[in-house]
């Protein structure tokens, strides 16, 4: 394990979230994993077509899969952390086996469990999530460490034939909490109302 490595990464997660979420349209659906990716997405701007998880650790990727299957004409991006994705390692296989072309999984990889005291995750050691995605059969699986690489990967996240996996190495930081509502029923209903129309709530 190299527990200092992530202290020196170039990319800052809040800036990465802004880059991913700026200028979005209503054909771009987002699920965030619990913890920091949720706060990052909220800091970039709350949106009814973002479903920010407050729990259900390990569920973000397959939630994105169910959504992507249901909405094949929309682009779905799951934005989650390395710890959350490590709990969902089997999801790489489940998603790749479905071959969903409109799904991108993006991990903000700070090599830490950020909500619980910054303990090192497995990615601070030998574990390579990009290699896992490739081995499972993701047609696109890339790691990003610089601003230039981030700019190059953006159209791939938003348009490439998937499933797409991108591991973005981000600096380990302690950042202020920027919280969305924690009312799960509200988050669900506002998403469905925006995507499916008011009749979906009847």
């Amino acid at each position, binding site marked *: 394990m190299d527990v200092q490595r992530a202290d020196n990464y170039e990319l800052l997660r809040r800036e990465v979230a802004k880059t991913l979420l700026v200028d979005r349209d209503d054909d771009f*659906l987002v*699920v965030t994993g619990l913890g920091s990716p949720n706060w990052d997405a909220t800091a970039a701007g709350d949106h009814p077509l973002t*479903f920010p*998880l*407050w*729990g*259900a*650790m*390990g*569920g*973000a990727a*397959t*939630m*994105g*899969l*169910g*959504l*992507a*299957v*249901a*909405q094949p004409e*929309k682009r779905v991006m799951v934005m989650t952390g390395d710890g959350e994705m490590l709990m*969902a390692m*089997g*999801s790489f*296989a*489940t998603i790749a*086996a*479905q071959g969903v072309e409109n799904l991108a999984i993006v991990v903000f990889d700070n090599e830490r469990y950020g909500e619980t005291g910054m303990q090192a995750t497995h990615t601070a050691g030998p574990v390579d999530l990009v290699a896992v995605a490739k081995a499972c059969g993701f047609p696109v699986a890339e790691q990003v460490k610089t601003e230039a690489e981030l700019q190059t990967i953006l159209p791939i996240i938003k348009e490439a034939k998937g499933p797409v996996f991108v591991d973005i190495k981000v600096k380990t930081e302690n950042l202020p909490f920027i919280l969305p509502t924690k009312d*799960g*029923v509200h*988050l*669900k209903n506002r*998403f*469905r109302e925006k*995507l*499916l129309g008011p009749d*979906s709530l009847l």
Partner: protein
Amino acid sequence: MTENYAWAPDIYDVLKDLDVRQVAYVPDAGHARLLKMCEADNAMRCIPLTTEEEGVSLAAGAWLGGERAVMLIQSSGVGNCINMLSLSNTCRFPLFMIVSMRAQWREFNPWQKPMGEGTRPTLEAMGVAVTEVDDPDAVGETVRSAGEHAYGWPDMSAVLLNQKLMPVKTFGK
């Protein structure tokens, strides 16, 4: 015991009536005939899971996108879902599970006992409504009632298919 899982087409018919589009499963012999019917149906997408909890979050994502999902799993898989059920519970996502039971009737394998006996209390502890059926003629309507409950309220609802509905598995003994 029911030969040839004669009730399986009744479940399939109900899933069609309920417009279920995503069929998430970890396979079990008790679901094999039904799964074949779902796989042959172009309007249904069968999604094998590596572990059952993936199905809970998948079903939530499906609902966000306007589709209905069902989970076909074995009793032992219920234990793999426990914390993920908090997603359905907190957000009132519909969750519809059809669970084939073990450790009930002429069970050969004692390793099935803990989770088989724990299936109902585990589900109920997490807020899932549980209905069990052992009469082959009542399977279809039991599934219909539970499915209408799950998608209509919406709520979490599980049907337990009693082991009497399955052939006895004797591992060649």
